[in-house]
């Protein structure tokens, strides 16, 4: 008993006292606390307090009579929750569908309507206007084979329904503008190849694309 209390041990032991009292420390910890208690009055007092606390809690906390499990109530609650969730999911889906429908209506009705809003006099509409949708002018350089008579060249150009025909500098060379449905580059290439397949035409080269513009009335 004449042994001095080690202060570092005191702090460590002090924090373990509740579990010394409820007897859940492992053997090594238990022995170390026990050994410390032999020499430390303060810790012994704390053990007394905690033991009293344990007794108080155990006396006051009477074991209740446990009712039988009510599995049906739990399953009903789960079913009810699932139904609510399904309902919320349905509502969310409907709300999403309604939102999408609203957006579609806006895109198909409101936006074109905005585009049809009369512009200022003297201004021009672009091909984004539905009235011009799908119509594009292609500018083609057409080179006829040598020796093709001019009359035959003009007949061939008329068959193209060219809107404009400009004679080039070289013999048998023309720059024509044809109005065709909007098409892909592949289709345009096919179109020029078809023209080149004629025995009178040597080459057809697409040199420009023009967006048709129409002055507003």
């Amino acid at each position: 008993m004449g042994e001095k209390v080690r202060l570092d041990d005191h702090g460590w032991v002090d924090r373990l006292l509740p579990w010394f009292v409820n007897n859940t420390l492992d053997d090594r910890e238990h022995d170390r606390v026990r050994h410390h208690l032999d020499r430390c009055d303060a810790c012994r007092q704390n053990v007394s307090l905690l033991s009293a606390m344990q007794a108080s809690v155990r006396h006051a906390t009477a074991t209740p009579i446990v009712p039988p499990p009510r599995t049906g109530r739990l399953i009903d609650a789960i079913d009810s929750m699932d139904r609510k969730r399904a309902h919320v999911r349905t509502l969310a889906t409907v709300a999403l569908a309604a939102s999408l429908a609203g957006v579609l209506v806006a895109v198909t009705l409101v936006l074109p309507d905005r585009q049809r809003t009369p512009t200022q006099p003297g201004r021009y509409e672009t091909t984004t206007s539905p009235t011009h949708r799908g119509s594009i002018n292609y500018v083609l350089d057409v080179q006829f084979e040598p020796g093709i008579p001019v009359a035959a060249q003009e007949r061939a150009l008329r068959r193209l329904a060219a809107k404009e025909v400009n004679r080039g500098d070289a013999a048998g060379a023309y720059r024509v503008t044809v109005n065709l449905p909007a098409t892909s580059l592949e289709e345009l290439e096919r179109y020029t190849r078809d023209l080149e397949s004629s025995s009178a035409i040597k080459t057809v080269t697409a040199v420009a694309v023009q967006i048709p513009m129409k002055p507003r009335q």
Partner: protein
Amino acid sequence: MADAARAKADDQDRREAALLGRIVQADRDAIAELYRIYHPRLFKFIFGLTHSYAAADELVNDIMMIVWQQAAAFRGDSKVSTWIFGIAYRQALRSMSRGKKAPQHARPEDSAGDEIVDLETQDWLWRGLHMLPYPQQLSMVLVFYYGLSYSETAEITGCSVNTVKTRMFHARRKLREYLAESARGHSTEDRRHHG
């Protein structure tokens, strides 16, 4: 013997983990079985924390609903029982903090008391316990009623072991202060009566 008990506990834990796996797949038979396994233990546990029969009855249901909803969150880092009792602890704490189902603590019974302490001291301690913040109260109950080790207490309360030790340390300090104040008040009252 200890090995056999441990093997049995491990086997039970595996069985319960398998039930949780089935619950993730929305298997109602699995939740019903887990509920039957845990109902008595959870009821006693909640009752021990809240001292309310009604709260225990209601909270056990709430806890199993949370198990149903969050079974996928169980990662197997702890035992299934620790995970479930952790949920129970948090539900009890929330319930007590809300004050909706405030614990109606019974005072210690006047039964044959512990030899260590007299009934009056027990009564003062019991009153003192309810002056503590809820986390400290619940830690006291977990340690002294359920006899949990510090690591088990830490797991269930979701705190570090150090936090649990500190919480118990502060609880003890406050109890000591409360007892000292009570003793002073008591002796003043005695003097008034006898003086």
